[in-house]
C-alpha cells in the first residue's frame, strides 16, 4: 500500500515537472523571432485615424464697396423751366480716393418762354418733353473729413468731384452728354450716406431752331446704402 502511494506521488511529480518544462503559451506571448531579412521588408504598422478632418473654411470679412441709392431734386432744363427730378445712383468705390459711378434720372420739362409768349402750338409733345438721362463716370474724393454736430458727435464726410458721360433723351432724340459736378457725402451711419449734389449736364440741342450747347443744372439730395 505504501509503495503504491509512493509510486502515485512520484508519477504525479514527474508529470508536473514535465509540464513545467514545456513552453507555456500564455506566459510567452512573444512570437518566435523571424529572419532579419523578412523583418527589414515589412514596414511598421501605422494606425489609421478613424476621425475625418474637419474642413475649416475661414470666415470672410464683410466687404462694402458698393453704394446704391435714390435721388430727388430739381433740374433746370435750359429754356424749359425748373422741374422735379427723380433718379437713382450706383457707385463702386475703387479705393479711398476714387469711385466709379452710374446715374439715371428723369424729369418732365416745362414750357419754354417762346411757347408761353406766343401762345401757339407747343414745340414738343409730352413724350419729347420728358428729360431722361443716364451717365457713367468717375468721382474723386477731393476733401475727406468730418462734420461736427455739437461737441459730442462727428460724421465722416467727403466733398467729391465727378465727371461722366452718357446720353440724354429730350426733344425727340438721344444726345451725347457730358456731366460734371461736385457733391458732399455725409455718412450718417457706417452703411448709410446722404449726398448733396450739384451737376451740369452739357449737350448739343437744336430744339429751338439752331444748334447750341445746352447746360442743364441739377441740384439733388440722395440717400444711399453701402453693401
Amino acid at each position, binding site marked *: 500500500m505504501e509503495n503504491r502511494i509512493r509510486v502515485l506521488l512520484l508519477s504525479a511529480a514527474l508529470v508536473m515537472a514535465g509540464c513545467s518544462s514545456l513552453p507555456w503559451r500564455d506566459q510567452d506571448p512573444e512570437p518566435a523571432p523571424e529572419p532579419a531579412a523578412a523583418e527589414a521588408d515589412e514596414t511598421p504598422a501605422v494606425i489609421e485615424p478613424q476621425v475625418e478632418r474637419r474642413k*475649416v473654411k*475661414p*470666415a*470672410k*470679412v*464683410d*466687404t*462694402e*464697396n458698393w453704394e446704391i441709392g435714390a435721388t430727388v431734386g430739381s433740374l433746370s432744363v435750359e429754356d424749359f423751366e425748373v422741374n422735379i427730378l427723380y433718379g437713382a445712383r450706383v457707385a463702386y*468705390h*475703387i*479705393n*479711398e480716393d476714387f469711385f466709379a459711378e452710374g446715374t439715371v434720372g428723369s424729369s418732365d420739362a416745362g414750357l419754354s418762354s417762346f411757347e408761353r409768349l406766343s401762345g401757339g402750338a407747343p414745340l414738343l409733345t409730352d413724350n*419729347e418733353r420728358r428729360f431722361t438721362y443716364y451717365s*457713367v463716370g468717375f468721382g474723386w*474724393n477731393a476733401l*475727406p*473729413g*468730418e462734420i461736427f454736430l455739437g461737441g459730442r458727435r*462727428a460724421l*465722416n464726410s467727403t466733398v467729391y468731384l465727378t465727371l461722366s*458721360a*452718357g*446720353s440724354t433723351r429730350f*426733344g*425727340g*432724340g*438721344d*444726345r*451725347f452728354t457730358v456731366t460734371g459736378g461736385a457733391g458732399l457725402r455725409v455718412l450718417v451711419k*457706417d452703411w448709410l450716406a446722404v449726398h448733396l449734389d450739384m451737376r451740369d449736364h452739357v449737350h*448739343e440741342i*437744336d*430744339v429751338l431752331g439752331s*444748334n447750341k450747347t445746352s447746360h442743364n443744372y441739377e441740384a439733388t439730395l440722395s440717400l444711399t446704402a*453701402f453693401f
Partner: protein
Amino acid sequence: MARLCARALLLCLVLTAAPAAAEGLEVIVVEPYIELRTGPGRGFPIVHVVERGERVRVLKRRTDWFHLRDADGREGWVHRSQMLETLVPTGSRLEVDDPAREDFVAHRREAGLMLGDFGGANVITAYGAYAFNAHLSGEIALAHILGNFSDGQYATIGVTHVPVPEWRGQPFLSMAPARSASSPRARRCRRLSAATSSPTSAAACAPTWRGVSSFARNTKST
C-alpha cells in the same frame, strides 16, 4: 394691465441695452501695434492703438480699410497694410483678398464700359465676356451711338482671342457679327417732312435695321 405694460417696457429696455451679438470676425493682432482711425482714409486722426496679442473684431472692410472694434468696445478704421499679419483664432492668417496679376490672367468673367467714336458719332458701349480658357472668350456688347443727326444702337455677340495671356499688355483679336438700328432725329425728320412732304423723307424717319457697315456708311453720308 399696468404690470403688463411695465414688463413690456422692461423687455424693450433689456433688448435695447443688450450688447450686440458677436458681430464680425475675431482676429489677433500680430503687428507690434495697429492704429485705429476715425474714418476710412489716411487723413483721419488716429484715436486708439491696439497692441500685439490683443483680440479685435473685424466688422467690415471698405476699399483698403478695415473697421475694427476692440475688447473695450472702441471702434476705428485700420489700413490693410497693418492687417496682413493678423491671425484668426485657428492660427491662420486673416484672408485679405488682394487681386494679383495671376488672378487677372485666370479671370473668367469680365464686364466693362467703353467710350469711343463710331464714324463721327459718339458711342457708349457696355460689354460682358466669359473666358472659356486663357486664350478664348465669348463676348456680348451693346452700344449706344449718339450722332449729330441720328441715334442708333447695335448689339454684337462674338469671340475674342488673346494670343499671349501672360503679357502685361495683351493684344487680342475679336470677331463678332452685329445687328444695329438707327433712327434719324425725330424733330429734324418732322421739319424735313413738312418742307418736302415726300414719301422718301417720311420713310427715312422710320427706324431701320441694317448691318454695322451699312449703318456706318449711312451715318457718314448724313
